[in-house]
């Protein structure tokens, strides 16, 4: 089989796969889920990080325990016989750790930079919702002029772009399940975005994470992720009726 022939067949195969899966998705009425969302990136990097620090921790702890056990004082008058390092060895014990730690630091910084970019670049097709923090609650404002308090209704399967403001002191808007948070500061418009998946339909906690006074811990509400058609219906039902206003 010639190389050209092989590529041709591969192309047909891929084409067929795409058509087939697209039609299956259409037939079942489900959308293709977005991948590489901030939440997925966060969970992935967190796992990596936990492995990283566990390995370092276990190595250091094991060496420490070994040295503590093997170097106990045998006779009362004993003194330690720790090495007097040559200048080269002393230099090595500084430079080699610097390179080892710096390698890990650069690796982690690079991973963090990439994920940060993901967090800070909102997809173009995102649904914009305004959230305003105040002492002590969250006002959620939709483009259709609907305002509700302590309840953020969003459609599943679409990126959500939250524009954050504060009416008074500094608050911090946090949805633990989607690993997103940003401060709401008076006089500024901040933002964040997240992507609720179809399988995440249902209720999630949103809450304040910057101390804002007496009822700081009561400044919470629900994020309600709804199937898109139900969400659209909810918007229609709650829209202020034009002409009557």
């Amino acid at each position, binding site marked *: 089989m010639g190389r050209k022939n092989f590529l041709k067949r591969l192309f047909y195969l891929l084409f067929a796969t795409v058509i087939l899966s697209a039609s299956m998705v259409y037939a079942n009425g489900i959308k293709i889920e977005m991948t590489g969302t*901030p939440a997925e990136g*966060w969970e992935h*990097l*967190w796992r990596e*990080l936990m492995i990283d*620090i566990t390995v370092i*921790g276990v190595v250091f*702890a094991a060496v*420490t325990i070994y*040295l*503590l056990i093997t*170097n*106990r*004082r045998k006779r009362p008058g004993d*003194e*330690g*016989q*720790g*090495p007097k*390092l040559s200048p080269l060895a002393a230099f090595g*014990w*500084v430079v080699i*750790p*610097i390179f080892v*730690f710096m390698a890990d*630091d650069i690796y*982690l*910084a690079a*991973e*963090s*930079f*990439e*994920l*940060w970019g993901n*967090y800070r670049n909102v997809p173009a097709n995102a649904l914009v919702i305004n959230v305003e923090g105040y002492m002590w609650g969250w006002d959620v404002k939709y483009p259709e002029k609907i305002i509700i308090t302590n309840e953020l209704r969003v459609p599943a399967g679409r990126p959500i772009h939250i524009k954050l403001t504060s009416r*008074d*002191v*500094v608050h*911090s808007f*946090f949805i*633990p399940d989607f*690993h*997103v*948070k*940003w*401060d709401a*500061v*008076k*006089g500024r418009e*901040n933002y964040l975005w997240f992507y609720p998946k179809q399988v995440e339909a249902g209720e999630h*906690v949103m*809450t*304040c994470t*910057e*101390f804002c*006074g*007496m009822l*700081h*811990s009561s400044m*919470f509400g629900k994020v309600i992720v709804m199937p898109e058609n139900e969400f659209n219906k909810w918007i229609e039902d709650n829209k202020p009726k034009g002409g009557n206003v």
Partner: protein
Amino acid sequence: MSVASQALTAQSKFSLKEWIFTTDHKRVAILYLIGSFAAFFVAGIMAMLMRTELATVGPTITSNPTNYNVWLYFHGAAMILGYQIPSLTGFFANYYVPLMIGAKDVAFPRLNALSVWLYWMGIVLALLTFVIPDPPDIMWTGYPPYSIITPGNTAFYTFTVLLIGFSSIAGGVNFLTTIIRMRAPGITWNKLNIFIWCTMAAFVMQVIFVPILGTAVTLLSFDKYLGTHFFDANAGGTPLIYENLFWFYSHPAVYVILLPGVGLIYEIVATFARNRVFNYKGVVYGGIWGTVLLSGVVWGHHIYVSAIPSWLALIITFTTLLISIPVGLLVIGIVGTLYKGSIEFKTPMLYAVGFMFLFLIGGLTGIPNAMSAIYIHIHGTQWITGHFHYVMAVSVTTAIIGGTYYVWPKMTGKMYNETLGKLGFWLFFIGVNITFSLTMWLGYKGWPRRYYDYSQFPQFQGTQQIITAGSYIIFLGALVTLITWIHSLIWGEKAPQNPWGSKSLEWTHAPTPPPPGNYPEPLKLSEDWHPYGYGK
């Protein structure tokens, strides 16, 4: 009768006036010790009240969230400004610096007395929290605009910080001069105790950074009481200035606390392993001064989600991760000092071992906080609370308690009961691990810090109760330690001059307890003398 024994007799008659007006660095040290442990105790009670409140969803012991917020404010401010910094740069610096460098006293004894007076005034002002109507409820961070619009008396916060800050700056001038100018003949830079280096580094940072905090909290009270608008968004100011200024001091403050703690651990480990410090120059010039060098460029990791620009977040991520290098060198130095050592597990050494593990966990769990993208989820959660309690609060407290046990025979002339001392350690060590490992786990699960109530997270009530139980164990451990010390003062055996067999100057040359003037005879140190000159 020799001069020394005359001085000792004079010292044994108690006179309150002599204590208040003392300029003897050892007495000033003890004044700091009493003040800082009093702050530790009261702030510890606040922690117990908060932990008890969190044992159930909804009100447990108070139905007024402001009470909880005041406890939390006092706990944070008093633990950091009233207990940790003064016990390290007040008590230990005063007691050890002149003794370890072979000096009679500090360079400016009367300035030293002024420092401790200012500190005590700060403590009294802080304690008024429990007397005045509308005490501050602004957390130790005092973020505006809340600290400006609150009915709580933010001025008490401002003046407490200013008094203790002045005390610190005066201490910095004094101790930097003392270390540079008053070392006994033969004590060259590379023969200084690691604790001396750490104290120097801490005071260099205090002198540079405290004025910035002073500025920030002063502007806060200007805004609140004099009608200025530095942090008022309506009038063109912004609260973000405060956040930057505050952390520009308060992250270096972590190293002001950590480094002297690490210094004490080095003294304890070298003495109880009877071993030279592993790679002394690497520890001093790489570990200690490397930390100082980086301390001014890491503040931004506290405010990643407070709208700092992305380019700054990226730079700060990198510089903050780099802190792992000097801190790694400090850890390698401690662990390396165990190698071929001759280790004896007396109470101070147990605390030093405890420090090694708590600091390892605390240090490594700091890495996620450095990474801006990971920080987004954990900012303002109990993960942060758990992390900084491991790395700063409890690991440095093991250094402080261990260091106090270490200096105890020299300072009081009495030995303490080993069994009681070790019991106190184990209770403390077990308690902190239960409490703060679960605290971090809750934060990872999304539980925010500074919460009086948690009706949005009822599923965590069981975990909260285990944490509360853990905190009671910590408190019990601290009580056992207090009892051990009181027991020692009353019934302790007389301490020999050098009970630990240390080679450091204060143990080998100074009488126990040292008289005013410290060394009865001029010091003559041989050419090959070294505070860690073991195993020759």
